[in-house]
């Protein structure tokens, strides 16, 4: 498997996910400190480093409470002279960026690399944020690879550039690069021993304010100019030469779609492939533009390259026709693919696309007209299903479903906005539920309810909670404590007694923390005792002040993994059709994917290969029909 390939010490070839290739590149660069908070599409970087921690034993790693702490951790290690790396999704960079901008000014010491992934199409993010502007805005160099091989090479180069110019370096990826698996050429691993240093041997000042900041800014501009020269020389910007006056500038995964689209069309156009998003190789771009009458700019999301190239073209080739987003040929929405690129290339060159892609899509959508939707859903055995069910029951009993505001947050439980719950009023960003609650509590007569998971609690909700308590807010907070950062693959967090590599860590005592902060009440419920949760939830919603409900039960996927490791069996459930009266409490507003209906008698049936045996469905059944199957002991 690929983890074995990441461990290899030889220089052979291997099939790797780009996220694994990034880890391999860092290991080949003798990285010494890693810190990260998980976030799709980068989570496998953290997971791979974590799984290899004890195998190598020569780097240090922490799963950080959030991306800002992760960046500061690796920057601290860099200031101590160590090569260090962090990875985050671009919304994570929003959190980390406060320190990132200052680090632009202060610079770093040991090579310090940040992997930042955008998510065009918002596959697993709250927006299609374009993170490319961060580099330019903070004067921090930014690179963008297209393939796993290039991702690995860029990581290695990024460490060198970082050390040569004493600057942070960001490598920007997109989902289609992170989750692309391809062949890579390994290089030898020459790891060195981890050995602490002394501050006196590496000491520099990393301090920026007022007059110091102004002095650093002048130096920063010099640094930017030097980096521009680096960019002009870089092999990561290259021209695929061809004859003709129609040319293409592209970067990232769009380069791959472009190459395949050209092949499909039997075309050979000159391409300038950009690998250094900031600083751009402006002289090379100008030289390329001078050879053209028409330029096609192919990039997902915002017209980042297009606008900068347009500015360069003003002096280099003012008659140049630029085909891109501003000309209406390409969209700023969603991710691209070969058909999208091929259609524009065909139009500009007066050719016909190799396939009638629109007809294929139309036929498919006609065939799919009656296909049932498969929305994301809580797993069988998920504790959130029980918590949300009890929450709704409590609101019904209090007859206040239309007299509350429910501020949701980021995690698996975000799915409360999907069927069967469909009752979230907001969901913005990590920890935002508590901040929004402050403003709403001040201005609305309704009861304000916020919900966070344990990982989100420690990531970004704490300042908002302290703010609510400090202002005597009348808010009910649900904390869904499922032991781990579930959505991204069940990583450890400050709520875990473990850290990267399974190493022991201090678990934060959640109840004590809330009590110390001054919460009016803290009630712990078990969502597997679903019916029993209704009254405590009712009480917490009715009570005045800041009241906390901790719904505690391990994520089902994590819990199953632990059970497996301990040799325990998962005993599925079945429905007792004699007892079942077809009330469908287990179906309406519950939506367990293990549950189906027998069309012959209308009774509920549990698909035992999917069932997790949680028996939450028994707890919501008025006649207790579901029960564990009999197993031979």
């Amino acid at each position, binding site marked *: 498997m690929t983890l074995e390939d990441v461990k290899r010490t030889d220089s052979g070839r291997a099939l790797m996910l780009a996220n694994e290739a990034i880890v391999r590149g860092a290991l080949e660069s003798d990285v010494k400190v890693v810190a990260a908070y998980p976030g799709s599409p980068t989570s496998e970087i953290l997971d791979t480093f974590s799984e290899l921690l004890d195998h190598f034993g020569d780097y240090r790693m922490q799963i950080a409470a959030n991306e800002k702490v992760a960046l500061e951790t690796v920057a601290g290690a860099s200031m101590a002279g160590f090569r260090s790396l962090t990875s985050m999704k671009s919304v994570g960079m929003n959190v980390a960026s406060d320190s990132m901008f200052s680090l632009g000014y202060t610079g770093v010491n040991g090579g310090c690399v940040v992997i930042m992934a955008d998510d065009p199409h918002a596959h697993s993010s709250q927006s299609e944020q374009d993170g490319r502007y961060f580099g330019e805005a903070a004067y921090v160099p930014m690179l963008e690879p297209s393939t796993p091989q290039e991702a690995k090479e860029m990581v290695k180069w990024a460490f060198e550039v970082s050390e040569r110019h004493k600057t942070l370096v960001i490598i920007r990826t997109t989902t289609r690069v992170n989750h692309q698996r391809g062949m890579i050429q390994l290089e030898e691993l020459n790891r060195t021993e981890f050995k602490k240093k002394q501050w006196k041997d590496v000491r520099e000042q990393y301090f920026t304010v007022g007059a110091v900041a102004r002095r650093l800014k002048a130096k920063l501009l010099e640094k930017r100019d030097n980096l521009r020269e680096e960019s002009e020389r870089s092999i990561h910007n290259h021209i695929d030469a061809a004859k003709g006056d129609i040319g293409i500038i592209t970067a990232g995964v769009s380069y791959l779609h472009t*190459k395949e689209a050209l*092949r499909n069309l039997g075309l050979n156009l000159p391409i300038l492939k950009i690998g250094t998003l900031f600083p751009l190789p402006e002289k090379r771009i100008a030289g390329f533009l001078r050879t053209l009458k028409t330029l096609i700019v192919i990039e997902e999301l915002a017209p980042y390259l297009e606008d900068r190239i347009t500015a360069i073209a003003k002096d280099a080739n003012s008659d140049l026709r630029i085909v891109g987003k501003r000309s209406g040929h390409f969209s700023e929405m969603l991710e691209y693919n070969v058909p999208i690129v*091929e259609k524009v290339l065909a139009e500009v060159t007066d050719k016909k696309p190799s396939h009638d892609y629109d007809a*294929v899509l139309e036929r498919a959508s006609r*065939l799919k007209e009656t*296909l049932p939707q498969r*929305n994301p859903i809580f797993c069988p055995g998920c504790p959130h299903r029980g918590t949300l069910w009890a929450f709704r029951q409590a609101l019904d009993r209090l007859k206040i479903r239309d007299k509350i505001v429910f501020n949701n947050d980021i995690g698996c439980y975000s799915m409360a906005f999907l069927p069967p719950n469909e009752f979230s009023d907001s969901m913005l960003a990590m920890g935002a539920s508590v901040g929004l609650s402050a403003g709403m509590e001040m201005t609305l007569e309704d009861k304000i309810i916020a919900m966070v998971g344990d990982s989100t609690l420690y990531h970004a909700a704490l300042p908002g909670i302290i703010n609510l308590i400090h202002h005597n807010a009348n808010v009910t907070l649900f904390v869904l404590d499922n032991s781990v950062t579930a959505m991204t693959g069940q990583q450890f967090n400050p709520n875990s007694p473990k850290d990267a590599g399974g190493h022991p860590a201090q678990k934060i005592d959640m109840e004590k923390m809330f009590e110390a902060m001054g919460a009016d009440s803290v009630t712990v419920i078990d969502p597997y005792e679903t019916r029993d949760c209704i009254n405590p939830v009712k009480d917490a919603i009715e009570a005045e002040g800041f009241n906390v409900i901790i719904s505690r039960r391990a994520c089902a996927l994590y819990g199953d993994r632990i059970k497996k490791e301990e040799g325990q069996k998962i005993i599925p459930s079945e429905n007792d059709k004699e007892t079942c009266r077809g009330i*469908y409490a287990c179906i309406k507003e519950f939506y367990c994917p293990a549950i189906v209906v027998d069309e012959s008698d209308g009774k509920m049936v549990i698909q035992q290969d999917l069932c997790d045996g949680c028996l939450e469905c028994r707890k919501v059944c008025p006649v207790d029909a579901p029960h564990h199957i009999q197993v031979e002991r």
Partner: protein
Amino acid sequence: MKDSYDIIFAGVGGQGLMLLSAILGKAAVDADMEVLTGEQHGLSQRQGSIYVHFRMGKPISPLIPYGTADMMIAMEATEALRYIEYLRDDGVIIMSNRIMPPPGETEEVALDEERKTKYVTVEAIEKKLREITENIVLLDSLTLAKEAGNPRTENSVLIGAVCSCKDFPIETESVRKAVLDLVPPKTRDANSRAFDLGRDAGGECLG
């Protein structure tokens, strides 16, 4: 002539699609072929719709262009239809007859007091797929897996059927070796039998 042999994998989260993709990836690499995939990771919940773009030969983009995949491997029948825009006309579909109804559909079936609302059937799915291709291998993968001695060897049944496809570019024995290398050691015999049962069943369908 195409420069790549492209497979679209479809299924439901938790069915082991990633292992299936890893097995074919290993088989292809061991046979000295270039491989490029576009995978869907991320939200780790079970029971969602998932896919993998799996490309061998000389692909450039990680995503298969619409209407050009040579093969579809579907571990769940409705998911075959969900990604049908990727398959070329007359491409091969290797699919399980398993259907995992989403809860929204179950709710509609359960709450219809006249009992007229029925689940989507494999027959209805197959009929639609036949508008694109007649080369369909529809497998009762669970029954075959049980016959092989382990209900959890459905993936090997499907991979066996893949090898019955004449223009599939990897040698059958290389694929079998990759299967046996990557499944848990205790299940090797059952997986090998499941592989054979799938290959035989596929051979009958494709002639």
